[in-house]
C-alpha cells in the first residue's frame, strides 16, 4: 500500500500552500513531514485524506488515483491535531464508529473496539466519555478509532502537539511500536524535528510547499541536502570560511568540502557536536555560557575576534568547562557543507 503524491499544487487565494510536491511513501513505512509552520504539511496530508483537493497534481493510494474520491470513500485513517472524539459517544462507540457506519453487527463492533482499546493501552475505558479522559488518552482513543477499519494508510497531523512533553515522548514511541506491529503505511506530520528524527523511517523536509529533502533521519541530520535542511534540522554554527580548491579554511584548519561551494567567501556549517573544546590558559576564546542537558552540555563560546560558536561536550565535562574559562576551539575533521556568506561579524582568522 504505497502512497504517491504527484506534483501537488494548491493555493489559497494568494498563498501557495503546495508548490509541486512529489513524493512516494513505501509500503509499511513511517514517513514524517517536517517543516516550519505554514510550509504545507497539513495541506499535503489533507490532500491524501480527501479534505482538500489539489489544484493540479494527483494522489495515488496503492496505485489507484484517488484525487477525486470523496473523503468518506478513501481508505485512510486520520488522527487530528485537535481533540476530535465525538463528545456524545462513549469511548467504545467512538472506536466503533467506522464499523457502525458500515453497519457491522453489534458484537463485532464491541469485540473489535475492545481489541483496539487493549492495543492502545486503554482496555476497560470503553464506558467512559471523552470529557472523562486526559488529552493523551483522548489521542490514544482517536488512534484506536482510526485503526479500527484497518485502513491502508494512517495519517497523523501533529497528534501530539497538544500534549505535555513526557506524554508526547511516551505516545510517539507507542505510535511507532503499533505502526511497526501493524505494518501500516503512515504519514506523521510534525514541526518538531526531534519527534520526526526519532520515530520516522524517512523524514521529508518541506519548505514553502516544496520538498527539500527526503531521507532517513541520520542522513537528513548528517548530510542535509540544502542549507535550509541543515538549518532546520538540529542546530548549526555558521562559521566564516575561505574556499581554496577542494578544501575550506576555517579557524586555521583546512577541512574537505562537501559538495560545491557557493563562492570563495562562505559560511561553513558545523554542528555543535563537531566542535571540540579544550581548556587552554592562552586560548583565544572563552566560554560565555553553559547549559547542562544531562548527557551533554551545550556551551556558548565567544571568539576573541568576535562571533560566537555553539559546542556540545559530554555532560561530565560540564563542571570542568565552566563559563569564563579560556579555551581553544577546533573542528572535527570531516567534510563540511558551505552556504553563501551571511553577515558574520568574525573576521577569518585562526582561533587555535
Amino acid at each position, binding site marked *: 500500500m504505497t502512497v504517491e503524491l504527484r506534483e501537488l499544487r494548491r493555493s489559497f487565494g494568494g498563498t501557495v500552500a503546495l508548490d509541486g510536491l512529489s513524493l512516494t511513501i513505501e509500503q509499511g513505512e513511517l514517513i514524517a513531514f517536517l517543516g516550519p509552520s505554514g510550509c504545507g504539511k497539513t495541506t499535503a496530508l489533507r490532500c491524501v*485524506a*480527501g479534505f482538500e483537493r489539489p489544484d493540479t497534481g494527483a494522489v495515488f493510494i496503492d496505485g489507484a488515483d484517488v484525487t477525486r474520491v*470523496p473523503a468518506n470513500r478513501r481508505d*485512510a485513517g*486520520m488522527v487530528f491535531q485537535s481533540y*476530535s472524539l465525538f463528545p456524545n459517544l462513549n469511548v467504545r462507540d467512538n472506536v466503533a464508529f467506522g464499523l457502525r*457506519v458500515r453497519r457491522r453487527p453489534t458484537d463485532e463492533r464491541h469485540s473489535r473496539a475492545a481489541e483496539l482499546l487493549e492495543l492502545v493501552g486503554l482496555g476497560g475505558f470503553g464506558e467512559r466519555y471523552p470529557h472523562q479522559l486526559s488529552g493523551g488518552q483522548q489521542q490514544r482513543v*482517536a488512534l484506536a478509532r*482510526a485503526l479500527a477499519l484497518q485502513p491502508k494508510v494512517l495519517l497523523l497531523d501533529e497528534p501530539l502537539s497538544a500534549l505535555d512533553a513526557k506524554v508526547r515522548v511516551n505516545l510517539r514511541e507507542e505510535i511507532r511500536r503499533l505502526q511497526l506491529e501493524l505494518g501500516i503505511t503512515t504519514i506523521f506530520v510534525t514541526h518538531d524535528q526531534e519527534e520526526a528524527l526519532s520515530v520516522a523511517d524517512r523524514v521529508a523536509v518541506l519548505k514553502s510547499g516544496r520538498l527539500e529533502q527526503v531521507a532517513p533521519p541520520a542522513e537528513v541530520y548528517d548530510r542535509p541536502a540544502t542549507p535550509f535542511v541543515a538549518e532546520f534540522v538540529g542546530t548549526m554554527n555558521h562559521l566564516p570560511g575561505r574556499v581554496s580548491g577542494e578544501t575550506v579554511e576555517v579557524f586555521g584548519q583546512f577541512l574537505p568540502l562537501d559538495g560545491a561551494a557557493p563562492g570563495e567567501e562562505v559560511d561553513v556549517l558545523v554542528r555543535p557536536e563537531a566542535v571540540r573544546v579544550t581548556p587552554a590558559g592562552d586560548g583565544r576564546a572563552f566560554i560565555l555560557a553553559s547549559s547542562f542537558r544531562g548527557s551533554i552540555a551545550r556551551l556558548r563560546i565567544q571568539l576573541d575576534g568576535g562571533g560566537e560558536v555553539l559546542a556540545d561536550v559530554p555532560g561530565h565535562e560540564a563542571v570542568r568547562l565552566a563559563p569564563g574559562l579560556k579555551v581553544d576551539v577546533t573542528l572535527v575533521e570531516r567534510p563540511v557543507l558551505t552556504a553563501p556568506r551571511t553577515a558574520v561579524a568574525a573576521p577569518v582568522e585562526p582561533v587555535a
Partner: protein
Amino acid sequence: MAGVTWRRVTLGVAGVYFLVPLAISVWFTVYNETQGFSLGAYGRIVSAPGFTESLVKSLLLGAAVIVLVLLLALPALLAVRLGAPGLRPVLETITTLPLIVPPITYVVGIANALRGGTDALAATPFWQTLISIQDENFPVVLVLAYVMLALPFAYRSLDTGLRAVDVRTLVEAARNLGASWPYVLFRVILPNLRSAVASASFLSLALVMGEYTIAALMGYRTFPVWIVTISGNDGQLSVALSVLSLGLIWLLLLTLSGAGRKSK
C-alpha cells in the same frame, strides 16, 4: 452574605411580579361569587366547538415548521461554517430580515401572490398547487410564512450551539471514518446540538402557538385565532384559556429542555 440576601430579594420580587397576576388569574377562573369554587370554565374550553380541531391544527403546523426550519437552517449554517466562512455576515443579515418586516406586510404580499393568475391557469399544475397549499385543514402557506418568522430565532439558537463544538474536526473525523453527509448531519452534528435544536424547536413552536395576525387576516382558524373568537364574550373563559395555554407552553418547555439535558 450580602450577595445571598440580594439574590433572595431579587428572586422574591421577580417571583411576586410573575406569580401574583398568575395566581389571581387562576383564582378568577375557578371562583365566582354566585357559584363558589368550580372548574366550569375549563370544562367549557374543552367542550367549546373547535377546541381540539384548532389545537391539533396548530400543533401540526408547529411540527411542520420545526422540521422545515431545522432542515433549512442547519445545513445552511454548516455549509457556511465549513465551506464559506466569508458568507456568514450575509446569512446573519438574511435571517434577521423577517424580524424587521412587519407581519402585515407578509399577509399583503402572500395574499397578492396567491390571488395571481386568471381562470386560464385554472387547469395548470401551478394553479392546483396554489389551491392545495391553501387547504383549510392544513394550510401549507402558513407553514411557509411561519418558517420565515421562525428563522431568526432558530438560526441564532443553532449558531450558538454550533459555536460550542468544533464542527470542522467532528465532521472531518466522521467523513474520514466513512460517514456520508446525511449520516454526518443526523448522527454526528444533531446529537451534539441537542439543546440548541431543542431551543430552536421550542421558540418555533411558541411562535406558531402565539401568532395571530397572519392567520387571522388570511382566514385560518389556528389555536390563537380560535382563542380570540371563542372568548370574546366570556371573561372567565378567556382568562382560563390564557392560563391553559401558558400551562401548555410550560409543559412543552420542560419536555424539550429535559430532552436537551439528556445529551449531556
